[in-house]
């Protein structure tokens, strides 16, 4: 088979798939639990856990390959950015105490659960073309009902706060092979993404485990390996945090 013919078939395959990739703009990114409101200076205490940060490369086939150096750098940058912005959340902020041993493992598992819930919300409630029938029904009734369960009440620092802020980031930067794939795919008239930049921020009720507010996006901005990029990322994650001025300040 000639290269020209290969390119034709590739173009055809990719063109057929053009409708399979939904435009990211068509998707909601944020939601609030029905009836939940948080006013500025309402005497509510917000427990802030250290953000979960995973950074690596994306192989040609799309697999995540962790990079310890990038992860450490991003973790430092994101924590630095959060330290500045958490003062603007509009309510009293409590930094979660250090956890180790079983407590650290338990917190890590809850963070993973938060990520799985956020992913399910994006995939099955935010993504218009892929909503589960029961979630479609919820959307019509303006119901946003997701929960991490009451075990959140046992997390370190939970007894001294009302709500907890969970932040999860996973960044996979496209490898050379992935970028090549993206370029070849472009010839076929369709966008194959190179890199994955996932960010979720959620406010959890520490008594019930209910998800009160979520900002979740599978295509975040900001290179978290750089200080400026991490600042942009954290501002984006917290831009419409209930009761805060962060979004308004960013727009000015």
């Amino acid at each position, binding site marked *: *088979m000639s290269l020209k013919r290969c390119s034709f078939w590739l173009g055809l395959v990719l063109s057929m798939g053009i409708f399979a990739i939904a435009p990211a703009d068509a998707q909601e990114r944020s939601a609030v639990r029905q009836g939940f409101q948080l006013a500025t200076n309402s005497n509510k205490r917000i427990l802030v856990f250290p953000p979960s940060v995973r950074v690596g490369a994306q192989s040609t086939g799309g697999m995540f390959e962790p990079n310890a150096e990038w992860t450490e750098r991003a973790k430092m940058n994101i924590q630095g950015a959060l330290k500045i912005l958490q003062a603007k959340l509009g309510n009293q902020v409590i930094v979660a105490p250090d956890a180790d041993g079983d407590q650290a493992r338990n917190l890590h*598992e809850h963070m993973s659960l938060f990520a799985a819930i956020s992913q399910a919300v994006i995939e099955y409630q935010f993504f218009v073309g892929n909503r589960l029938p029961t979630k479609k029904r919820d959307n019509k009734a303006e119901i946003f009902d997701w929960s991490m369960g009451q075990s959140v009440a046992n997390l370190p620092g939970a007894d001294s706060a009302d709500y907890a802020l969970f932040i999860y980031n996973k960044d996979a930067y496209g490898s050379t092979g992935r970028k090549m794939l993206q370029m070849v795919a472009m010839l076929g008239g369709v966008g194959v993404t190179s890199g994955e930049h996932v960010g979720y921020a959620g406010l959890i009720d520490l008594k019930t485990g209910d998800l009160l507010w979520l900002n979740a996006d599978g295509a975040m901005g900001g290179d978290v390996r750089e200080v400026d990029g991490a600042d942009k990322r954290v501002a984006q994650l917290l831009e419409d945090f209930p009761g805060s001025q962060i979004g308004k300040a960013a727009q000015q």
Partner: protein
Amino acid sequence: MTAKTRIMAVAMIATGLLSLASPSLAHKLHEKGAAVAVANAPLWVTPSRDWNQLSGRIGKYAETWTLDGGQLNDVTFYGGIPAGESLVRERSKKHDPLPKFTAETLLIEVPELVERTYRAFKGIGTFSLISTDPAPFLGKDGVRFTYEYTDDDELTRKGEARAAIIGGKLYMMTFDAPRLNYFGKTIADYRALADSATLR
């Protein structure tokens, strides 16, 4: 690698990626009380609450239902897997082969078949079989087993399954959910679904 084989490899990956990205057909609602045949088999269940059937299938003989998304609660029906077939579709027969259900597979060996399939298909390292007990399924001698594993999303999930071998084919229902909150919240709904299952 020649330029031709490189382009062919990229094309294959592109096709794979697109098929993964495709939401294909819409997910389907199964309403409480309405009996329905599942997994293209004469396997019928009557749900005790509304469930969503995911549009994608992980195998020719499999069908998945969920309440909140496969990450959070996953009921998979395996509707009569014949000898020589794997539980789920193989990604690559050459590079990523999956264990097969065979004519010699005993009921007591089914939990191990599930474990080996999960390890290979989900790429997990940690899988523990918690219990295996005889328990009727679809009105025949069957096995009921429980397990726990940690996926590559670093979330520990618990699972419970019921299986029976009838007419040389494997019928099975599995339930998988994070051990935090979701497993306990939905296990009774899964058991009610499994209790309602019949072969017609």
